[in-house]
């Protein structure tokens, strides 16, 4: 069963088309990863699904209900974990969760029980009566999730839920996402952390320029660039005068990513160019510390598809 169906959806802001004839089906029970560089249209797509933004053309349905015609009904199906922590510092954890859950029609004992359950789920039971201003970043992120799940939504949209937190809290959140999915919620997950997406998502869509440019499981996406090889070169000095465009001139190279002193080069397997790549570095007086060849991963797929890093 389709939880979300987007059909030829278009949204423009003035002359800029943020989402361009986007079509997408998200099945019940999926953890669906939505990836794309900044400005690719991910947030616009999410905001249209949640009813926060109107769209110009096409149609969107959530659990078979049209988001325009049955706005309140579709909103009731969704729980949103916004990218920014969206809680009230003046309310306790329990009051925060109860307030947001009450907006979905919960009341009385049912509301109290649901709020306590959500806090327990996110490991915040002992902090139910505490104010979030005393919380760490990770605890605030967990409360952010608790506020979205107390009303037991069928669809949970998580927009970068692990930004800026410690590994322990990140791990807790990733386990929570899996558990929520096991309990029956379908999840749309966006992240800048490719390893998170690889770990938890059953299917992934890569967006760029307002369109879905690749869609499938992690394996299916990696197969899209199985004709390529990834070379990781670590150089001795940071910013040693390496130019992406110069490396792209080497025959067979289709994408280059430079992060500090690590250069990731995507190259077609059929072209034998390793000697030319090494020659580029040595002829420019750049000392190579290490060199590694590996099979394409999701990050390489993203780089090959968009020509950009995920964090661009």
């Amino acid at each position, binding site marked *: 069963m389709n939880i979300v169906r987007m059909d030829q959806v278009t949204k423009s802001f003035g002359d800029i088309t943020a989402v361009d004839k986007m079509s997408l089906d998200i099945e019940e029970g999926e953890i669906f990863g939505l990836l794309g560089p900044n400005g690719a249209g991910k947030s616009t797509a999410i905001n249209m699904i949640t009813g926060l933004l109107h769209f110009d053309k096409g149609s969107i349905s959530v659990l078979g209900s049209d988001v325009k015609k049955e706005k309140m009904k579709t909103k009731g199906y969704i729980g949103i974990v916004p990218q920014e922590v969206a809680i009230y510092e003046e*309310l306790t954890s329990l009051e925060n969760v109860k307030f*947001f859950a009450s907006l979905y029609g919960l009341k009385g004992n049912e509301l109290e029980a649901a709020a306590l359950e959500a806090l327990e789920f996110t490991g915040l039971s002992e902090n139910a009566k505490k104010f979030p201003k005393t919380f760490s970043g990770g605890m605030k992120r967990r409360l952010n999730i608790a506020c979205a799940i107390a009303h037991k939504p069928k669809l949970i949209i998580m927009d970068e839920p692990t930004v800026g937190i410690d590994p322990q809290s990140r791990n807790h959140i990733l386990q929570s996402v899996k558990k929520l999915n096991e309990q029956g919620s379908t999840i749309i997950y966006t992240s800048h952390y490719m390893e998170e997406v690889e770990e938890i998502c059953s299917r992934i869509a890569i967006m760029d320029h307002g369109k879905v440019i690749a869609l499938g499981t992690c394996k299916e996406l990696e197969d899209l660039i199985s004709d390529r090889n990834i070379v990781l070169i670590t150089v001795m000095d940071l910013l040693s005068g390496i130019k992406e465009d110069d490396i792209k001139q080497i025959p067979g190279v289709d994408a280059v990513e430079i992060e500090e002193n690590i250069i990731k080069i995507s190259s077609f397997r059929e072209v034998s160019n390793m000697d030319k790549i090494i020659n580029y570095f040595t002829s420019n007086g750049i000392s190579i510390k290490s060199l590694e060849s590996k099979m394409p991963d999701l990050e390489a797929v993203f780089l090959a598809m968009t020509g950009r890093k995920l964090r661009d």
Partner: protein
Amino acid sequence: MKIYRIIVKEILKNVRDYKGNSMMVLFPIVLITILGVSFSGLFSGTIEFDDAKVLYKVEVEENKAFVDAFESFSSMLEEETGIVFEKTEDFEGSKARVEAKAYSALVHISENPLQISIYKNEGAGLDTTLLENSIASFIKSYDGIMTIAENNPAALGMQRLQEYEGNVQVRSLDKKRQVGSMDYYAVTMLTLILFYASLTGFWAIRGEVEQNTAPRILCAPVSSFELLTGKVIGSIFVSFVQGLVVLLFSKLVLKTYWGEDLLSVGLLILSYAIMTTSLGVALAFLIKSSEAASGVLNAIIPIFVFLGGGYMPLSAMGSVISTISVISPVKWINSALFGVIFDGSYSDMFVSLLVNLGLAALFITISALFSRRRDRAYA
């Protein structure tokens, strides 16, 4: 139920904002005390009815009974309040003397139709207000007497006595209650700080944007009506209670006078809190930048408060200021509160209620129109 939850959340959020609360409650209390003590000399000399002189000109041929009634009434008023009535025949000259502030007012009694007109100089003081209200009571009484005379002439003598004594009794009591500096600033500082309650309304809306909670609320199945209603009612409640705390503290601790009719005073304060809070809410939809909106409020509030006599009595500020002051809702709420508290007069109360609730309706309408486009309203 959702509206109720939003109201409770707004109240809790504001109650726990200790910094904001202390500003809203302590600030006026401190100001009342400081200004009340500093300007006590100014107020002790301003209300002196003994020096007040009023001219009256009679141009009546047929209704001599009315003139007799008026003269009887004015002599009793003179006896009780010290306001001196002098008859005049020179209408234009008398007007000039009032303009020159040699006299407080000129009362002109004319007929066809039978009426009393009062000419006063701009920036007239409390003595003129007292005169106006007394004459208004006199006319009301006279109408009552005439009705009785037509239907039950036997009761006329007793009625006449009771009515006149009633009027003078009220004025006599008022005369004993002069507006002290502490009393004056208790009213004006309360209305000053309640104007700043517009910030409570403003932050009820913009706070959701700044705290990043707007998307979460807007994604929930809550209508724009429920959201706006909950926020407006919650904010009004907070502002009103803050106003009541200031009122009670000033009454019980600073011993300022708030009159006998606290219900009407409360009603006026409530209507004013509704207006100022609605202004803040509307501004939040009209101006997206918090700094710009705060700038607008911080610019207009002192001007309106000044024009409302918030810092100094209007009578001390000259005719031009008095004329312009009608544009300030603070002028109307202050006049209404002073009328109810010190003079038992309700004429300005109804004007103030109309101004406050009319403006509030306008601001809420603007807010309702803007809040329908939720993606833009809370952007």
